[in-house]
């Protein structure tokens, strides 16, 4: 096992897949010589050269359009959209073209590509560079949606995404990039669609994703140490495919479920998951499912303001306690 940062794990996954499959190509704005503005593609240009690792103009439509055209005709492109906020600039490709073309063509056309993008808050970049938009992608039929929380998953899930025969939107969280942890050496591939139970508890089930996972874990420690509340913490890892089995089993076990999500509140992935849980194991629930989310506001830039809106460890703890205490609604 080697210690790798999340950003290095991303580069390692791409390198691993480019070595084994000549069809894999990487491109985006400043991804080549510069190694990416987040330094997640460092070394790839040097190893694989300008034919396989390319810089593009600021043309998000052309980036995803070209990725799609290449994927339909035999390549396995990994396209970078620098910030996930910019998916809005090429949403037609994400939602209308890449996601739907296999279906519309009755399976004649395959689109094996990965859209990598830097997601989430923490860098004080303001409302147009800090969003969590994994719920946008989840809402579109035909897309797989992956968001790792650890360096090992960044490597293993990205490798799997590149091998996947379907389009995958891969969210790399900006505030996790510098995190270092053990990553299996040699070939490492994690199957898509498996959630991970990181902590077993008996009172509540906390379901989190990406940067909310370490916060949920810390909150669980505080809840155990200071409030005697024993929490299961689960990392969803992918929204599509969704590991509903694990999700439902872990939810049923405690009967009290909390989702922790960074996307703004309305129509977030937490809403979907809460709806699935209440619909399928209604009888096992001992109280309402509580969604802990960023409120439904754009993101402010100043550090104190940003910290005030994105779910923090303290807020998770507080909302869990309030959720367990109150029987207002019940």
């Amino acid at each position: 096992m080697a210690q790798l940062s999340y950003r290095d794990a991303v580069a390692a996954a791409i390198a691993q897949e480019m070595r084994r499959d000549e069809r894999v190509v990487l491109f985006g704005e400043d991804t080549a010589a510069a190694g990416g503005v987040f330094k997640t593609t460092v070394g790839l240009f040097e190893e694989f050269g300008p034919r396989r690792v390319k810089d593009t103009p600021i043309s998000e439509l052309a980036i995803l359009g070209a990725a799609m055209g290449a994927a339909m005709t035999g390549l396995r492109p990994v396209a970078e959209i620098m910030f996930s906020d910019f998916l809005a600039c090429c949403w037609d490709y994400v939602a209308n073209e890449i996601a739907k073309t296999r279906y519309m063509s009755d399976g004649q056309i395959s689109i094996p590509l990965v859209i990598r993008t830097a997601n989430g808050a923490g860098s004080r970049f303001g409302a147009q560079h800090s969003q969590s938009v994994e719920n946008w992608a989840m809402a579109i039929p035909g897309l797989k949606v992956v968001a790792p929380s650890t360096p090992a998953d960044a490597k293993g899930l990205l490798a799997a995404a590149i091998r996947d025969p379907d389009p995958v939107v891969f969210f790399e969280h900006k505030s996790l990039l510098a995190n270092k942890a053990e990553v299996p050496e040699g070939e490492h591939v994690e199957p898509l669609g498996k959630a991970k139970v990181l902590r077993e508890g008996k009172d509540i089930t906390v379901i989190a994703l990406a940067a909310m996972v370490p916060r949920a874990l810390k909150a669980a420690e505080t809840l155990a140490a200071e409030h005697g509340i024993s929490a299961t913490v689960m990392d969803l890892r992918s929204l599509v495919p969704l590991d509903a089995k694990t999700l439902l089993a872990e939810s049923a076990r405690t009967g009290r479920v909390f989702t922790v999500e960074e996307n703004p509140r309305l129509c977030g992935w937490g809403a979907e998951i809460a709806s699935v849980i209440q619909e399928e194991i209604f009888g096992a629930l001992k109280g309402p499912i509580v969604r802990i989310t960023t409120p439904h506001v754009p993101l402010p830039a100043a550090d104190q303001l940003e910290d005030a809106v994105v779910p923090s460890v303290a807020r998770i703890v507080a909302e869990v306690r309030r959720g367990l205490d109150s029987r207002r609604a019940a």
Partner: protein
Amino acid sequence: MSVTQKAHSAQRNQEIPEATRLRLFKLQVEIRYCEKRAYDLFLQNLVKGTSHLALGQEAVAAGFAAAMNPDDYTFCTYRGHHHTLARGAPMLSVLGELMGRQCGLMKGKGGSMHLTSVAHGVMGSYAIVGAHLPIAAGAAWSAQYRGTKQVACAFFGDGATNIGAFHEALNLAAVWKLPVVFCCENNMYMEYTPISAVTAVKHPAADRAASYGLERQVIDGNDADVVYSAARDAFAKARSGGGPSLIECLTYRHSGHSRADPAKYRPKEELEEWLKRDPVTLYRNRLLASGVAEGTLAKIESEAMTKLDQATEAAKASPTPSLESAMSDVWADGGNAWRN
């Protein structure tokens, strides 16, 4: 047309092998007949959704298709029946798709606006204006990367030149020197609005070629020989590493924008003028003038009609698709499961 132009065009026609010229005629006739049939099928309420006919634009499809290799890639718009047929997709599968039948190219899942026949190099028809231009560039990049000498070709309307994807695709294709040919079918209208009312330049595509370091090309899109020659040169250039081309073909649609449109916004004289320049009639007369026997042409026409009639009957006889197919092929595994 001036005397020198006439001589020039007759000469060009003679330079094209007779087999190719007969093919250009055949393709135009087949498209013309099939599009008219599609229209009749609407009237019989056998085509349910919308449909965008290319009556009057047959020469563009024939000229380009005749200049392509079988493994080249075609990317169409919603107005794509002509290009799909020209690449060799069977009439049965095209009409079947319009009618939403099991025999359709995509078993009714895509419909008239999304005709796709990968087996014939038709990599899809795209209903979001301009979206396929970057996609075609990507296919060209793939061909370049794989070293296959394939060329990608995207067809689009005059209206599509004002959307951002046009600009991004052209720039990327030029910078990466991609083997892609962009063919603008300038039929003078974006839906119900004259293109001149919403465009800063006279020639919406050609007058922008310089923005991408490309040559300005405006051609007579109703003359199959002219189209064929320009396409052949552009494909040759692309295949030999010379990069993209942008060709603006001047043409006209004889019918409305789509099924719902009686096209009342067009001056009567304009339509009449263009009907005089009907590409199929024009080409028929040229072949006759160049010595092809009337019987040869009549045979092509009657064979096309026979083929079409058979296809029509077969499509009508084809069952509607199974309801399960509405749930299939979201994913490569054939299914639609988003969860376990």
